[in-house]
């Protein structure tokens, strides 16, 4: 009998692990990471950012979500960029403007990167809301602005990545 049990025990454990998708080792904090794919290649000689839009779902105070924003310098000279939180010029249907404090919840790993000609840099952007914050909007939007601050002239361009947040 004891021998049978010894044989059955590992089989039972393996069975349970298979049923649960080996989910015993759930990390304490689920921090999604970048997984962007694109169709085709962006131009080398144009300044661009990617992704165009990031959607965060089921978010809650105390949670953290992060994504890498690609910034490409399309100039043939070194350029410095300003990567900053920005209130949106418009929001998606059903979404609200961001809470006033949202500025302090967005962490940008490098907000003034200097890029070599035609260099692409991944910049980590994280949304980290304190656990004690009360957010009344169920859905809200903020933008990450990227601007080449070395661009001269009196007509300049700014590129923005839209971040749409849906709360639990």
């Amino acid at each position: 009998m004891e021998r049978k049990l010894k044989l059955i025990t590992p089989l039972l454990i393996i069975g349970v692990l298979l049923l649960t998708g080996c989910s015993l080792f759930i990390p304490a904090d689920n921090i999604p990471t970048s997984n962007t794919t694109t169709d085709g290649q962006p131009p080398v000689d144009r300044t661009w950012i990617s992704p165009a839009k990031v959607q965060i779902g089921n978010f809650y105070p105390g949670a953290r979500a992060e994504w890498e924003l690609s910034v490409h310098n399309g100039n043939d000279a070194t350029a410095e960029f300003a990567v900053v939180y920005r209130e949106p010029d418009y929001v998606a249907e059903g979404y609200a403007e961001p809470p006033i404090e949202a500025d302090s919840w967005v962490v940008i790993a490098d907000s003034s990167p200097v890029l070599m000609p035609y260099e692409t840099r991944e910049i980590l952007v994280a949304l980290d809301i304190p656990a004690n914050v009360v957010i009344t909007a169920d859905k809200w939007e903020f933008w990450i602005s990227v601007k080449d601050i070395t661009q001269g002239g009196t007509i300049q361009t700014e590129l923005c990545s839209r971040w749409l947040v849906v709360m639990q």
Partner: protein
Amino acid sequence: MRKGFKWLLGIALVAILMLSPVAGLLGFSGMAFAAATTQNVTINATPGWVSISNNLTTFDFGTVLADTDENTTLNGFNVTNEGSVACNITIGCNGWAKDGSTNWTYGAAGSNTGQLSFALSAGSFPGTTIPSGSTVSFKTDLDNGASQQWGVQLDAPNAFTHGDAQQDTITLTAAMNATG
């Protein structure tokens, strides 16, 4: 020994079930399962890149007279969506801000006060005032690869008290449109 082994086996199984999400389905709605429900934050990114360019990066009206409306042609500039997604573009400026000058006040024509407006190629001047410190819609749903011609008008002051050069920087801001 045999009895002890059965106990050990039972405890091991219960521990495994309580640590796993399937525990909820089996009625083990303890703390371990409650903790697992906070793991559901999702994050997705829309593939593609945002990029725009304007054919000219600077424009100079030269010497202007008081109480005049100087303007480019309606197709003086051309902005192109170089990205892979359709974009909305907004426009704004930073007001009169030339280092070393006594700057005008930004606003409808007055003494030492003037402003800029824009119009798309299908429109007409004076068009829409370009706000200072904020933005207005410039063009919605500009498809990738598409261009939009536009022009600028200066609503010059109706009187000057000095001849200092003036400069205003216009910014075109692109972001993915609502349906892209």
